[in-house]
């Protein structure tokens, strides 16, 4: 459906550099990354709002790299909705339909939960309703590909969670391919078939959300999903020594690195590393503890009380990312 080949747009320090990505028909791919990682630039390149310095963009088999936006047949859901203030919800849909069809427009508005609000203009709608109009407008255009740029970031958390699940269902039902930019890992996990992680303008890993979460290939990919602890360690023969404990690791055979593990990667074990619970917090069905491991602090999914002494061991082999001295000093500083 969408194929990006070595796409580059250089703004100096920022931009997109050598990005390649392939979307199959009906697939939803989330582009995940921190602010300034190049996500929105990538989306604007696909939309035709920016012209790439090099590389090519294909929609189906058509090379659209130099095509203006209006020729690409895309739908776009903007972070700030970008609704037309003088048009009603219904008029938004009719304007973008190739052959305006009132019945179809009404049906689509019903589907996104806006039945009865067809005549309302943007300033008469709530934030969630505006986002639904933006989505209905995008779908009414019958796009070859739907682009979503952090569409729920302006909504409150409850509405955000509700809407993103609804939209994902709708897109799958309509068999619409979508490129969904977000910095929210929960959103990527909830809506995407695959995730493309971006860092410094480059796509550093593309895989299913579960795979990127469980087996990140880079530190940026590991960080993109959050829930990450990092400890500066020295690896010797594929093992690290922590407080007298030896843990087997992968990703680095020898030298300085960062031991990366999620909150749920450590568990209570009688022979484990001694740790003191410093604070307990959490909610939403899990209890998290900030613990002092002796070699640094970490957050662990654990049932314990503040001040309690526990012993912790990894559930499997942990990952170490190699680090330069400079980066290591930085990480050690952060760990303190």
């Amino acid at each position, binding site marked *: 459906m969408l194929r990006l080949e070595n796409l580059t747009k250089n703004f100096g320090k920022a931009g997109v550099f050598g990005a390649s990505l392939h979307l199959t028909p009906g697939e939803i791919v989330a582009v995940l990354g921190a602010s300034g990682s190049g996500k929105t630039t990538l989306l604007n390149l696909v*939309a*035709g*709002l920016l012209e790439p310095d090099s590389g090519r963009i294909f929609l189906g088999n058509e090379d659209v790299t130099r095509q*203006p*936006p*209006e*020729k690409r*047949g*895309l*739908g*776009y859901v*903007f972070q700030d909705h*970008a*609704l*037309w*203030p*003088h048009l009603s919800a219904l008029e938004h849909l009719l*304007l*973008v339909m*190739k052959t305006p069809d009132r019945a179809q427009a009404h049906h689509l508005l019903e589907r996104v939960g806006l039945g009865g609000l067809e005549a309302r*203009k*943007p*300033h008469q709608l709530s934030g969630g309703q505006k986002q639904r109009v933006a989505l209905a*407008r*995008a779908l009414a*255009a019958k796009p070859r590909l739907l682009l979503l740029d952090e569409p729920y970031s302006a909504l409150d958390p409850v509405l955000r969670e509700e809407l993103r699940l609804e939209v994902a269902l709708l897109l799958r039902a309509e068999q619409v391919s979508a490129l969904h930019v977000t910095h929210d890992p929960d959103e990527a996990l909830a809506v995407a078939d695959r995730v493309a992680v971006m860092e410094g303008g480059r796509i550093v890993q593309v895989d299913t959300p579960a795979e990127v979460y469980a087996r990140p290939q880079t530190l940026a990919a590991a960080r993109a999903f959050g829930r990450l602890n990092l400890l500066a360690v020295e690896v010797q023969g594929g093992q690290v020594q922590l407080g007298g404990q030896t843990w087997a690791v992968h990703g680095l055979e020898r030298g300085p690195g960062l031991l990366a593990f999620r909150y749920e990667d450590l568990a209570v074990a009688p022979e484990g590393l001694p740790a003191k619970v410093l604070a307990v917090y959490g909610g939403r069905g899990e209890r998290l503890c900030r613990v002092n491991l002796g070699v640094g602090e970490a957050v662990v999914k654990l049932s314990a009380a503040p001040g309690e002494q526990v012993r912790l061991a990894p559930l499997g082999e942990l990952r170490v990312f190699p680090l330069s001295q400079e980066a290591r000093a930085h990480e050690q500083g952060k760990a303190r």
Partner: protein
Amino acid sequence: MPRGQPLATVFWLLLSLGVALPLWVLAWRGLGDLAILPRVLDLAGVSLLLALLGSLLCLGVGGGLAWLAFRARLHTGWDTLLLPAYLVPPFVGALGFLYALQLVNVQPYGVGGILLAWTAHYAPVAYLLLRPALESKLAPLLLACEVHGVTGWKRVRALVPPLFPALVAAFGALYLTLLGNFGVPAVLGLPAQVYTLPTLAYARLFSPASPDPLGEAAAIGLLLGLLAVPALLLSSQPTGEPSPRPLRPRGVWAARGAFILFALLAVVFPLVGLVRRALFNTFTGAFQPAFGDAWALPLVRQGLFNSLLLALLATGLLLLLGLLLAPHRGALKRLRQVLDLHYLLPGTLLALGLILLLAPTPVYATPWILLLAYLLNFAALMLRSMEAGLESGIERLVGVGKLFGLRHGRAWWKIGFPLLRPYLAAGVFLVLPLCLAELTLSAMLYAPGSETLGVAVLSALNGGLFREAAAIGLMLMALSLLLLWVPRKGVVG
């Protein structure tokens, strides 16, 4: 460098030179008549001092009102009390003060009368420039002072310096306007032989005793331009979006009182003067409206016809220009910057330049030279209005339409132009009344048969027809107050 760029640069360079041609010609001719300058340097000094003093007065009164309104958290609805003074053409306001001051037996002519009429007319400009600056720049700082107990001198030190750029910009804008103002000194200065550079240039141009009226007027125009140029650097608009702050209202009644007092002095007082003169016989005191007599004057009918024709044509053409340029924001901005020259510099310079440039052509001494002058003078105003609309995000929303497959023309037709409507209306309501009541350009460029309403008022005044002048002034005032209904709101989003 893109292929078309050198060509575009040459185009804009030529256009800028072409638009500035009247000023070049004026400078050239003025340099040939510099001999007059030593004789008018004292008047240049008067002009400069009057403009400086007037700007300070306007800034003091307008700034004071802005401060009171800001501290009292006065609703913008109260602005309605200040705006009429600004919306009425300055020479009509001057006419009102002339008659009103005579009613209370105060000598209206001379420096005092000019400064009074200027302050009444332009203090609201200072208010309109400074109130947003106070809201955006000072509100957060004042809140921080209140929360942290910063008072007295320390508070002044914390609040005043951030306001300097806005004060300087407002002062620059006022100085430029007052230096180039023709109407007020023409009504309240000329009869008392108090000249400013614009009225002096006017007097020299029509002086039968002058050996070279045009050359002398050009030299005076050149001097006027030299005094205006430094202020061009100061006159950029202060920027900043007001943000609501939970400031406690202080001195609400003082602020309301000041607004009412200003409205009484700057609007009601001259209005009473005009009404008294226009409706009652000066000698018998009997009710005897002068509208019929005014209408019977051929010059008034001719003036009304010409003013309406010119105003409608100029506004229509500028509207068309704005619409054509709206989809090309870069070009619109550049053209506006080029035309700003004639909007910001005193109109006297443009008028003299056009006389020099077009005197040998058939356009001279016809209404069409006035139309050209109006277009050059007011184009920047219309284009600024369009620019404000485009900067409010309309261009992006058109882009969104294109992204959804709408063709360029259809996207502008269905999205861009409808959203620009309030800004177009604002532009029309700004330019149309200004053209209708224009005096500076028409006083210098008119010829028999192409007189305007402003010229008719001035002629009636010079011919001793005070009651008829008052009647026309009153009509112009009523017309100008229609501006209070100008849609000021932007696009709802």
